[in-house]
């Protein structure tokens, strides 16, 4: 059998094919990373020269040399803080209800399926919802509040799913132990489940929110305005956010605005990166504390 030349020939081709495909698979895996590198280098090359203190502290302007991201940066921070205030309690509350309270009945399955489907709704549809519900029906206008509420609805499904995963990872034995000591359902949640699920909940929620903060589409539907030369001082003020400002600059034909867009992208990426870093730091800190 081993000396059968036809078999050996076939074995060689099979092994050769295997080897060449393994190279192909590795290259496919590296494609994404390669594009990521090229993208970051492209953005840095175009934008880093335009990124200075003047850029951070100036309002948008028709003259590229004087333009900056001040109003957009503060708009993003406003929306981010308000979204966190709204979506964290509601999202974690939903996750607790589904994991700890809800009996396994039709309502629970309905809510769960519904959340999975909401996570797949295109972001622009949330923009339309915000436009007709918050901006018009509730007469909030094109305000920071309307923007943050829209962001909240959009980021909720992802936050809920992340929080559920974290809550599910708490060992059942811990719950049963507390129940055996006579704890109520809420006492178990408050003292047993939440403390050990918190790092996971926080990490997941912050990651979900950082995705939402980078979204431009729903915010354009809410706040069409792009030239803002003031920082919002109340939740009813008009606002703009970094992704809108970047979009505005990208859509201009002059090359200088392309550079401004790249500089704006760097600022946006730094904001998102610091959110992710916060998530990681929080997770590490709490994890250590619960392990002690």
């Amino acid at each position, binding site marked *: 059998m081993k000396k059968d030349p036809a078999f050996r020939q076939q074995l060689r081709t099979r092994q050769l094919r295997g080897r060449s495909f393994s190279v192909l698979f590795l290259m496919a*895996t590296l494609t994404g990373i390669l594009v990521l590198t090229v993208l970051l280098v492209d953005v840095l090359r175009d934008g880093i020269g335009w990124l200075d203190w003047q850029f951070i502290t100036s309002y948008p302007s028709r003259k590229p040399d004087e333009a900056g991201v001040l109003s957009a940066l503060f708009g993003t921070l406003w929306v981010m803080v308000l979204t966190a205030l709204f979506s964290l309690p509601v999202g974690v509350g939903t996750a607790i209800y589904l994991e700890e309270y809800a009996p396994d009945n039709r309502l629970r399955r309905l809510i769960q399926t519904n959340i999975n489907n909401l996570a797949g709704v295109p972001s622009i549809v949330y923009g339309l919802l915000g436009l007709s519900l918050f901006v018009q029906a509730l007469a909030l206008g094109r305000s920071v509040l309307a923007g943050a509420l829209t962001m909240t609805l959009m980021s909720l499904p992802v936050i809920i799913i992340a929080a559920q995963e974290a809550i599910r990872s708490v060992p059942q034995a811990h719950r049963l132990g507390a129940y055996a000591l006579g704890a109520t359902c809420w006492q178990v949640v408050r003292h047993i489940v939440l403390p050990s699920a918190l790092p996971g909940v926080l990490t997941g929620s912050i990651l979900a929110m950082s995705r939402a903060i980078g979204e431009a589409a729903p915010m354009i539907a809410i706040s069409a305005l792009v030239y803002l030369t003031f920082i919002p001082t109340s939740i009813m003020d008009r606002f703009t956010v970094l992704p809108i400002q970047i979009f505005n600059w990208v859509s201009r034909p002059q090359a200088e605005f392309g550079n401004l867009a790249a500089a704006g992208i760097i600022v946006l990426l730094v904001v998102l990166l610091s959110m992710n870093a916060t998530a990681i730091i929080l997770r590490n800190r709490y994890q250590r504390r619960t392990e002690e």
Partner: protein
Amino acid sequence: MTMKVRESIPSPRRVRRQNPLGERGIQGLLLACALVSIFTTIGIVVMLVVQALGFFRSVSIIEFLSGTKWTPLFQPQHFGVLPLVGGTLLTAGIAILVALPVGLASAIYLSEYARDRVRRAVKPLLEILAGIPTVVYGFFALTFVTPLLRNIFPSMIVFNALSAGLVMGVMIIPMVSSLSEDAMMAVPRSLRDAAYGLGATRLEVATRVVMPAAVSGIVAACILALSRAIGETMIVAIAAGSTPKLTLNPLESIQTMTSYIIQVSLGETPHGTVEYYTIFAVGLLLFVMTLLMNLFSQWFVRRYRERY
């Protein structure tokens, strides 16, 4: 409302009676949180349908769904949505042509070839790729990919479906690859060992044993990625142009459903006009399309999952 705790957990009824208001209040509050998601869905459906009805009072559904001219913003007005749907499917199709082979190959690599250390290094990088804001991808498509492509196709215009579709494909690679990888990792080790025992090469194990066993997850991943591509907005709004056109030529400027909504949102279209209501009719169609695809992928996984 009855107090029920899931079966596995003994109901602490006695304690609750001592402090019924607090416990019940908290449970009610948590239920209210959970109902927010139900009301969101109701809100989306009611809002889209009601506003779209404002549009369908002036334009018949048949004209909307079968017309091949979309010129709502200038005279003579035509309200045929097919050019927008065509543009959407063209860019999403290009995206899936990129993401399917690359994502699948990288899923095979990560689940069948890569050592643990490599996987731990590569997966976070792919997650970063998925976390890049779409407006950044749009910038990349317009300022990097388009000039590059124009060296190859000198006749190509600045705004085109190809560049937007390619970059969108890169954007959904992590989705295809991580969902397919999950499906492949779920295939039991014993199946692979049996194939290796028969003398199969790694490639043969991957393509003839693991992939067929994971096919339901892989198909679901592709449908979800396609639905994501259809709903993607900023890349096409920046790089694909704003010319509604029924064409299969990826070098031309087109307009997608999502980028049309953005175009109207940016303009000063007065509230209450037919032009204003068009975005809700288009939004409703977009919502229905993506919802059907998401439901289909969920059904597909349930129906065709191999159980071990």
